[in-house]
């Protein structure tokens, strides 16, 4: 009864770094949002923003350094070994990578959340089977599984998206299951059911809306990893196939020209890095906002 005595408003000593970090909305969050907006705009309007087509070659202007480093001014980030504009290729690659990651996230979040709810609702063997799959997924590095599947089935876009969608579903399932179990046990979902409300209504009206915050945070954790998975696969030459393009593929292509024309690969790498960084920062911040108790203690 008196446990609340101590929990009231613990405040911390704050240094200047902390103040910047925790100012509202912090500068880093503003920058992250700005960068994500740029990425989304580029992905949406690639046709209008890219100065050239992504496959448009001009063999006479191969391997030009970036415009601002003494190259041709019309190629801001230079050209690659086939004389294609690096900037345009990065913009189109953003579209592909973001699109795949978004689709993958939607698939993973929906599949995972639904399976988690199903496991917690039915308990018993259904729960056992789903949790066994979750454990299995967590036990084997997903990149290996993805490589194996691609090896056997060959590479195609749909398979790639489905594979990437299946990455991370276990996280959502675990979270959804935990939340449902706790609210079903002694919590509001259980209490509302004892009023006679149909379980389906309880899940749709009460449980899912209450879960959205945590799911959103999980998405911000999962999204960067999904981008990394796709770019890793493409980097290894096993994801998006030429003539299509993806940030990972660009970096992979650029790897062969590191010594002579580093600008072919590096911009794509920077874009991947900044995007995952922005989402991670945003996720941290979101988590702080959503759950003040967790402030700074999260994992």
């Amino acid at each position: 009864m008196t446990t609340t005595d101590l929990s009231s408003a613990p405040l911390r000593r704050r240094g200047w770094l902390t103040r910047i970090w925790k100012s509202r909305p912090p500068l880093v969050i503003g920058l992250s949002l700005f960068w994500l907006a740029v990425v989304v705009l580029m992905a949406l309007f690639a046709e209008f923003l890219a100065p050239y087509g992504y496959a448009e070659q001009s063999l006479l202007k191969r391997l030009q350094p970036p415009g601002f480093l003494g190259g041709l001014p019309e190629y801001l980030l230079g050209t690659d070994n086939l004389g294609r504009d690096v900037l345009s290729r990065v913009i189109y690659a953003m579209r592909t990578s973001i699109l795949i990651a978004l689709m993958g996230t939607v698939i993973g979040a929906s599949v995972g959340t639904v399976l988690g709810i199903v496991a917690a609702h039915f308990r018993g063997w259904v729960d056992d089977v789903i949790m066994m799959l979750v454990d299995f997924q967590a036990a084997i590095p997903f990149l290996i599984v993805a490589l194996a599947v691609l090896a056997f089935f060959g590479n195609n876009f749909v398979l790639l998206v489905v594979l990437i969608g299946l990455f991370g579903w276990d996280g959502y399932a675990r979270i959804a299951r935990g939340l449902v179990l706790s609210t079903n046990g002694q919590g509001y979902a259980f209490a509302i059911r004892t009023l006679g409300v149909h379980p389906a209504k309880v899940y749709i009206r009460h449980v899912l809306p209450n879960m959205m915050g945590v799911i959103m945070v999980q998405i911000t954790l999962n999204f960067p990893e999904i981008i990394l998975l796709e770019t890793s696969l493409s980097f290894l030459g096993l994801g998006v196939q030429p003539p299509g393009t993806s940030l990972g593929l660009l970096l992979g292509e650029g790897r062969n020209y590191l010594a002579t024309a580093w600008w072919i690969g590096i911009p794509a790498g920077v874009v991947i890095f900044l995007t995952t960084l922005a989402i991670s920062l945003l996720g941290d911040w979101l988590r702080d906002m959503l759950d003040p108790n967790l402030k700074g203690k999260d994992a």
Partner: protein
Amino acid sequence: MNPQFVITKLVRGTLTLLLTVTFVFIVLRASGDPAQIMLSDEASPAAVAAFRERWGLDRSYIEQYLAYLTAIIQGDFGTSFRDGRPALEVVMERVPVTLLLGFTALLITLALGIPSGIMAALFRGRWVDHATMSFTILGHSIPNFFLGIILILVFSMTLRWLPSSGTGSIWHLLMPAVTLGTAAAATVARFTRSSVLDVLHQPFMRTAKAKGIPYDRRILRHALPNAAIPVVTVVGMRIGGLIGGAVTIETVFAWPGVGMLLVNSVNQRDLAVVQAVVLLIALTMVLVNLIVDLTYGWLDPRIELHNRRAAKT
């Protein structure tokens, strides 16, 4: 530790392995005629027939599955069509190099991640904390293949300090191991920090203080043993990440290990080798998880909860 706990974990590990084998079997079957896929196009009809006979492809799926399972258990993963040698042999000769890389990376992960996580938690809100947290976010966000390329660009291409690829000396090992280790270190540091912070707020820490135990011994004797419990789990999980990461890193640095073998085999569709690698990794992960679980049981006496329900007033 009680045998019940160990047996449960062993059974679960075996189950995971079985699930992996089943998964590979299903993928193998679903992807078409194994004889066609596993053998190269130039294989003689006799070889195809022998293959069919060997794997029982004309029998029912259950029988095929059992035949497959038996073969796997006997260590027969098929033949690499590239050089005609048993797949297992092809894989095993790559294992030592990968282990060297993996262990070095793991050492870097632990040496970097755990102390910085502890320091960040103990000096929460100070510069150590902010530096660590910034490092963890950067480490988490930067793709390891990109980090590898940057390192090559800086230390091999520009400064010419380190070799960019291959094996042979400790200098060859340095960049791949650092690249592989740092990302995992970020996760470990972050988790260690949160775990230590969590423990610092536990009531028993206040008890220790009330007992008059000085700060350093409170941390050493009470906080860290408790904080270690969840950290062990995350280190175990990161080992999976290291294996996944090794695939890309070995490719970036042309490190001739299992990861590079896997990528090349996938590219060339040398499926016998692919399945051998996948099953071998699954076995490794199961062993790692078993070790983690046993460590866990050793660190945390509460694990025995189910068995010894004792003296209640």
